[in-house]
């Protein structure tokens, strides 16, 4: 089966399909579109796609069902879920079912292209499993890391605080980091909502989801000065935000644990 298309957009709302198609086509991607899950699955058997960009709310079979089939039958195809609204439930469920990431509606040009580019890059990397999931090379102690998909992680730190960072693969998929928008101190983060916005060299926006709810007490000023820490030491010195967690006991269950 040859690669016929880069992306398959599964969305029943014409204006969203058209705009996404226009943007992504202009960026040089080869796009196909389907109005519902059945058509999408039909197309997936006929052609090959690197990335499926699917709405969660579809007529008849919803996006989660499509995601399950994609992950089972087309493991090399990455899935980005479009949600009507970023909620913890949608985020966690998408990640648990193996989605690469999700993007809440309404999104802009930069956000759409950002996540698509990362997914495309990941799809290339996924051919090499070791590269896609690099080991957590930290200081050697047995620390538990709690991951929200391929997006972000958190771990316990001193004085009952927790630190949040991005997974090692994330900066690699972005390429060059131009700017990181840290959340202001004292703001409350919600699990599954936006924690940081990373702008890459070409102006695309990459959203980092907060893996836990909590109050921001400190951004990592070292990273603020030296973005390259995200590439060199993403699991230790490359943490991004320190928070006082609010509901860890309930929220950690939503995350996947990896031990160093």
């Amino acid at each position, binding site marked *: 089966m040859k690669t016929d298309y880069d992306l398959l957009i599964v969305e029943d709302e014409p204006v969203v399909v058209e*705009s996404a198609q226009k943007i992504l086509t202009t960026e040089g991607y080869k796009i196909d579109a389907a109005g519902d899950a059945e058509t999408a699955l039909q197309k997936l058997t006929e052609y090959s796609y690197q990335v499926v960009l699917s709405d969660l709310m579809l007529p008849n079979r919803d996006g989660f069902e499509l995601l399950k089939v994609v992950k089972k039958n087309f493991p090399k195809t990455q899935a980005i879920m479009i949600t009507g609204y970023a*909620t913890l439930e949608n985020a966690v469920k998408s990640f648990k079912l193996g989605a690469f990431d999700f993007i809440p509606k309404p*999104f*802009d040009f930069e956000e759409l292209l950002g996540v698509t580019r990362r997914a495309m890059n990941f799809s290339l990397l996924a051919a090499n499993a070791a590269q896609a999931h690099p080991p957590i090379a930290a200081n050697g102690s047995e620390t538990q890391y709690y991951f929200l998909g391929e997006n972000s992680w958190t771990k316990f730190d001193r004085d009952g605080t927790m630190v949040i960072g991005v997974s090692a693969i994330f900066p690699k998929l972005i390429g060059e980091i131009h700017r990181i928008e840290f959340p202001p101190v004292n703001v*409350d983060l919600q699990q599954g909502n936006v924690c940081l916005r990373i702008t890459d060299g070409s102006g695309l926006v990459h959203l980092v989801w907060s893996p836990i709810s909590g109050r921001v007490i400190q951004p990592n000023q070292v990273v603020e000065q030296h973005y390259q820490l995200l590439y060199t030491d993403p699991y230790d010195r490359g943490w991004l935000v320190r928070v006082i967690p609010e509901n860890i006991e309930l929220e950690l269950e939503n995350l996947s644990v990896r031990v160093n």
Partner: protein
Amino acid sequence: MLHKISNKLILAVGSTAITIIAIFSYFIIESQKQALISQIEHNANQLSETIKSSTKYDMLLNQRDGVHRIIDTIGQQQGIEKIRIFNKEGEIIYSSAKEEIGEFVDKQAESCYACHAVDQPLEKLSITERTRIFERKDSSLSGVRAAPPPSGQAGKTLGIINPIYNEPSCWQASCHAHEAGQKVLGVLDVTMSLDEVEAQIAANEMRMVMFAISAIIFISLILWFFVQRLVGKPVRQLVSATNAVACGDLNYKIPNHKKDELGQLAKSFNEMTRKLADAQRQLIQSDKLASLGRLAAGVAHEINNPLTGVLTYSSFLLKRANGNADMKNDLEVIVRETKRCRQIVKGLLDFARQVPVQKTQVAIPAVIDHVLTIIENQLRLKKAHVKKEIAANLPAIHADANQMEQVFMNLLVNAADAVESEGGEIVVAADRRQVQGKEFLEVKISDNGCGIPREDLTKIFEPFYSTKGQKGTGLGLAVVWGIIEKHGGKITVESENGKGTTFTVRLPIEEHSGSAIIRERKNA
């Protein structure tokens, strides 16, 4: 009419009064009657003794004229019907009614019966045995044509017989009319009219009846008055209150009730309607919030798609408009405003989303402090002075920390918005409070700002009601209300236009630890 309590009471008390007065009157009149009759009896006896002794001399001398004169003279006195003397054979030998003289009376007649009832005549009789009362019409002496009463009317008479005993002087008298062996020589019979006594008794009876009637009327009136005052009026008030409530007016209050049982009933009725109104308000409010939440969620989801179209196209155009500064500026406005729309929709969905309450042990004073640091800038800008009156050792309560923060954030931001730019003061007070046996943590947030007009006080917790115009979404207090309700608490507001507003939040203090709850939920 008869079903009215007052009438029933009057009927019951009236009939009781009638019975009591009737029995009472009967005994009074009866005893008066007895007293009067014995008085008459006594008088008659005395009279007959007088006649006997005054005629004794003439009798001994056998001077019949003298006896006649005495009897006639005495017989003319008022009240004396007649005076007769019978001899042993029953012949009337003297009488104040002359035509009777010489006639015989039957021994079975009333005058004779007392002694002659038995075969052997009795010789000694007590005064009561000697007395008899009879109707004047049926003559007491059968065989004797009764004399018509002087008044010509029917009436009762009292007769008294006085036996004339044989004495030595009688048989030793010159006439030797009687033999020594005889014991009773004859009988003196005095008959007296009872008309006057009867009239007196009748008058007494009449007085008694009049008294009884007026007493009953008087008692009934007093009873009616008090029943009206103590029962009728409050009952009417209660009836009209229940009718008003039945018609849906839950704000109806029974005015100035007394301290008696009906007053207590009115008080508890007022309390009941107040609670009903509260419950109804809460129900309406939750219902409104729920349906508005659904509406907001629906609208937000629908709007998200066209908004995506606008945002993607405009940001895409912006990206491509690098060469054209004018167009770039315009497109930037479109993108910025569309992103603002996105924030509004996010707010709506935040409001609509049924965020599960994640309760832990929350120290409310710490939450308040945190909120105050967040809005520090806003307060400084307004030059508002914040005064904290937070009691020491307040217990942590079982609540969702984020939602509590949202509550106090919204309330404090509102307070900051309400105060003037000079001299604004916001007081945050927190303390324990017992309400109906339950313990609550009470937080009062007061400002000396513009206040809320009375007519708007009921609307402020409604979604999309805002006084801030373009600045607010009108969801703040609705969200606060929803959160407090979910926590089993209560929020109330007092405000005086131009003077300031006080919001009072009450949250229940529960006695179990947060970790226990979390464990429960994990197991569930």
